[in-house]
């Protein structure tokens, strides 16, 4: 199973993500240099609840489940992102994120998220939109 995809394919893939949908082609190329690319095996814990120092992840391929205190909170898939809450408010990870099948992610170290968002305000706006949707959904379901 050869899962490698080349640079152009990766740029094509992330250009369709809401988070990056306002970026130009050169900016998208910069994104894949600024972020690291990582693979996670099925069952691997990517973010550990209660631990400090995690990163910001954007799912390029694959799926994950979000768990807190043993309770499943959400499922994540291609184009979704996670890890930003703990970084933005400076607390340990608030949930586990576990790959439910092999996952490819773009990863930005936590300490770089602030400067990245400030230098990419359109990405920050899209992240804010996504967070607002999550908040609205949480308010509706009472979770």
């Amino acid at each position, binding site marked *: *199973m*050869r*899962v*490698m995809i*080349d*640079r*152009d394919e990766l740029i094509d893939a992330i250009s369709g993500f809401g988070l990056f949908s306002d970026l*130009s*082609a*050169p*900016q998208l*190329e*910069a994104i*894949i*240099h*600024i972020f*690291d*690319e*990582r*693979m996670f*095996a099925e069952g*691997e*814990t990517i973010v*550990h609840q*209660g*631990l*400090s*120092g*995690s*990163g910001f992840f954007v799912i390029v391929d694959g799926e994950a489940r979000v768990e807190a205190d043993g309770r499943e909170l959400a499922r994540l898939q291609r184009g979704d992102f996670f890890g930003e809450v703990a970084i933005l408010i400076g607390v*340990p990870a608030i949930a586990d994120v576990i790959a439910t099948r*092999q996952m*490819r992610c773009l*990863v930005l*170290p*936590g*300490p*770089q998220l602030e400067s990245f968002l400030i230098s990419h305000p359109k990405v920050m706006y899209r992240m804010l939109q996504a967070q607002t949707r999550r908040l609205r959904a949480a308010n509706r379901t009472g979770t």
Partner: protein
Amino acid sequence: MTESTRPFPPGSYPVVVIGSGPGGIQVSYALRRNGIEHAVISEDPSPGGMFRRWPHFQRLLSWTKPHAPEPVGSRAYERYDWNSLLADEPQARALQPGLMDGTSYFPSRPEMEQNLGLFAERAGIAIRYGCRWTATRRIDDAEGGGFVVETTDGEYRAPVLVVAVGVAEPYSPPGIGMELTHHYAEVRPAESYAGHRVLMLGKQNSGFELANGLLPWACSIALVSPSPAKFSVQTNSLAGVRARYVQPYEDFVLGGGVAVLNAALDRIERTEGGDGSLTVHLRRTDNGNELAIEVDDVISATGFVSPLLDLPDIGCSISGRSRLPVISSWWESTTLPGVFFAGTIGQAAKGLVKHGVPANSGAVHGARYNSQVLARYMAETRFGKSMERPSVALADIVGVIASELADAPELWHQRAYLARVFTVDPSSGLVDDGVQPLTHFLDDGGPNAVGVTLEADGTGAIFPVLYTRIAGDIRERAMVAHPLLRYDGPDARGEILAIVREAIPDVPAD
């Protein structure tokens, strides 16, 4: 050496190790220490791997301090010597400092090559040189399967492979006009660039190394990549360009003739009417503008990939710009079980990368400990060997942890990546479970335990973190950073005691 005296003729072996760089040599030593028979093959004519050729300007990035706070040859000294391989026998320990001429604490490339050759000789590492790996096949049989390694000398069969071929195959990304560039690996002697205008694709260590080496020769240098350059002195880690290659950046900010540009490559073409010169068309990533630069040479400092041959074709997933294999915490392919990786390829198992600080698995001073841990794991899981788990008296545990935090090179070099684990064994009490990947400790579950490591948070501080496992739950307990990095004094021991008692309440006062 005649054919009859060359070691490891083709045939069946419990393990086949491929590679004779520091990774292959170190893992061979560690396998032997754990009683695992194996063959080592390499296409090279002598030990050293990539250090037989590179770095291009003949000086390493990794230091060895001939004069350090700890005695040369001691375990604690390994913290100050990033280049010697590990052995128990005194005659094979800390070889690098004895081979350096005192002009730099970064060994020269020939000094490093000599260090590796001397280690292989003194540690008695047998390698079949001139034996090139050409193809791989899987065997599915009743005895558990395995692999056939085809080589220029014939076929090897083994249930387990350890691939230690480095990350040293030149890589240039596709693009219009890339055939007009030459790679880092093909760079000519520096003086041949005298008076040339040089453009470097890539702003990582290899690009800055070349730029630094060409400062006395090239008349102008442009370093180009889509994202801004990162420097180790800014990230406070090995992520980014190392301090000794920063000179071209200073030249840039002082207007000396070096340009450092954030731009994506559009195309490279021969300059119309130019005398063999090239025009590089760029699209700037910081403002979207187009930019064309006329130069004499374009060097592709775009990195290296792992030469994994046909392993991806038989099921080994690979990923990322370096085409590294997708591997477990124990450096085993997650999609092709039985294939392990040692040496710098081990950086594919990234661990937690807490606060963005990577482990040092891509360098000798990290990979050498991974090899020790890997060999022990293989001995236990593949060869049914029962490894020693020494008992630790409850009254001693604080002192043992403080001593590890002071001296353990594994923890200093592989921060937040390797941990020494002390477990409350239901039958035998508190035991030393040895050094393990931290992610394994966090995810594996088990009885109450303490995992001890050191960490950095990107601010420059380095501090111990003790992870307690209590009734299956993991808690992270960071200790206060000491300005001189001393973690065996009374204050530190008090902190250790308080944390350890969370998991092991019976520990007496220190």
